[in-house]
């Protein structure tokens, strides 16, 4: 009986074979590729080349200097300090922004009456220009004990003027602006956790913490990956906020890779050196993205 059925099925399958048209022509991608190559690829490649020259930005004269720019970088206290600042700032932003974002998401995810309004309030700063947020915080952080944050908390801190505090103050305003962004990504993750899993865990006697630790947290892994990637890359590239709030000061206390490469190019005219710093920044971003994609993806599970 079986072979007969199989024999009958075969012609039917041939008749039902899918119509598979040829793939679309590459011309579909040509305009995008042309603009992308012109605006992103060519300048980035040229940037890599400039990083090995002494170009001053005036005219086309330049000579190759090998690794000289990178050797200068190693001996440049301001630039080396900026690498340390960039990393500290990034770690602080990543930890606090995502920690706060997760707490907000867990709070808003509960069935609160005000949840829709709370979500809008916490997210709103995300859509505002970082430069404007920085100007607002520059006032909030002013040293006068009767106004701003000092006035509210009864403190006398020079938030942006004290070199040991300024970097953390900048992290604070970045967290204020973007905690809502982490929150909505975590919220989307929380909404994907099936209710039945929580109910099953509850029947098995799991408490609130255990349910979070063993049900919610593993399923939140994709949201964690996205949030860590976004905040790390954002932290490493941070420019607008520092530029508007402190300009890298006091001294070099808040100088980041982005502000250093900006100054080297547009203030000192050292375009070759500036692109060398940019190349270091690019390598940091590439390394971090690579590690995060491969390491974090490996711990993602599905419901």
């Amino acid at each position, binding site marked *: 009986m079986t072979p007969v059925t199989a024999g009958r099925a075969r012609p039917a399958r041939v008749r039902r074979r899918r*119509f598979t*048209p040829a*793939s*679309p*022509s*590459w011309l*579909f991608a040509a*305009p*995008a*590729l042309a*603009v*992308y190559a012109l*605006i*992103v690829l*060519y*300048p*980035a*490649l*040229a*940037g890599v080349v400039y990083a090995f020259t002494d170009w001053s*930005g005036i005219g086309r004269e330049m000579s190759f200097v090998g690794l000289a720019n990178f050797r200068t970088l190693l001996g440049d206290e301001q630039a080396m300090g900026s690498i340390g600042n960039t990393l500290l700032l990034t770690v602080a932003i990543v930890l606090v922004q995502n920690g706060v974002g997760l707490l907000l998401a867990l*709070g808003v995810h509960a069935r*609160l009456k005000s949840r829709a309004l*709370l979500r*809008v*309030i*916490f*997210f*709103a700063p*995300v*859509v*505002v*220009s970082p*430069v*404007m947020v920085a*100007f*607002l915080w520059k*006032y*909030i952080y002013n040293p006068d004990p*009767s106004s*701003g944050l000092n*006035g*509210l908390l009864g403190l006398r801190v020079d938030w942006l003027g004290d070199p040991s505090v300024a970097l953390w103050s900048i992290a604070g305003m970045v967290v*204020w602006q973007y905690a809502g962004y982490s929150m*909505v*990504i975590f*919220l*989307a993750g929380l909404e994907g956790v099936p209710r039945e899993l929580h109910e099953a865990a509850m029947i098995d006697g799991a408490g609130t913490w255990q349910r979070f630790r063993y049900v919610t947290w593993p399923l939140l892994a994709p949201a964690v990956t*996205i949030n860590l990637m*976004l905040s790390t890359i954002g932290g490493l*590239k941070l420019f*607008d906020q520092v530029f*508007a709030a402190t300009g890298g000061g006091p001294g070099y206390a808040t100088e980041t890779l982005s502000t250093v490469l900006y100054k080297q*190019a547009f203030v000192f005219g050292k*375009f070759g050196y500036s692109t060398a710093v940019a*190349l270091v*920044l*690019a390598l940091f*971003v590439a390394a971090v*993205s690579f590690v995060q994609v491969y390491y974090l993806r490996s711990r993602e599970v599905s419901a």
Partner: protein
Amino acid sequence: MRRTFLLEIVMIVAAVAFLFPVYTLVVLSLKDPAQISQTPLAPPAPPTLDNFTAAWSAAALGPSLVNSTVITAVSLAALIALGSFAAYFLARVQTRLGYGLYVLFLLGIVLPFQLGMIPLYELVSDLGLIGTHAGMVLFYTGVQLPFTVFLYTGFIRALPREYASAAQIDGASHLVAFTRVVFPLLRPITGTVLILNAVFIWNDFFTPLVYLGGSGYETVPVSVFAYVGQYVSQHGLVFAGLVLGALPIVLVFLALQRYVIKGFASGLKG
């Protein structure tokens, strides 16, 4: 029930604390200089709109709003057209070269734009596009294409091929199948692409500062930056300028908040 109520109180307190900077911003913009120095934290008594009328004309916000709107709108149109077409090819092509091209586009997401910043400035300058809307549109289209292509390609891959195939059996070309059948099906992701790119382009600061500074074609953040630099110690004026500068995008956000939040939340599911 009681636990939910407690949580609600905690969250509302957190929201009120979170809004302190916004409160400061609004309150200071409604005060005269005497009130700002004497009672910086108290509500304005009486409130004044003088700061706003002065800021509106001094910051030249009218023209900047037009510039920002034109640059954002044209860039978005170009991004959607170029990005969706390219993604249709990248999602459907089955050769190794096609996949390589997709990876090449993705590279643009991680490359910090600072690496190509100076060569790009030279290029745009050689094209005679510094200080023009066209230069900015070209810049944003190029810089945001990788992300746009990434979003569209992921979405099209998850879309059954049969939609386009059906049209092609009826004799439609790929071009017709894409524009008439596939593109309308991309609406959800087109919404996400629109929102994420619009917020980025509208608020971008560094490139418009370098390309448009002093040209008379400044965007809103650049105008506000110049304005704040000029009136730095007059907080009432500065804050009225900040309120006016932030208001357009905040209003759009409030009107479309469900879509905006959804766009941001779903945008990067790779």
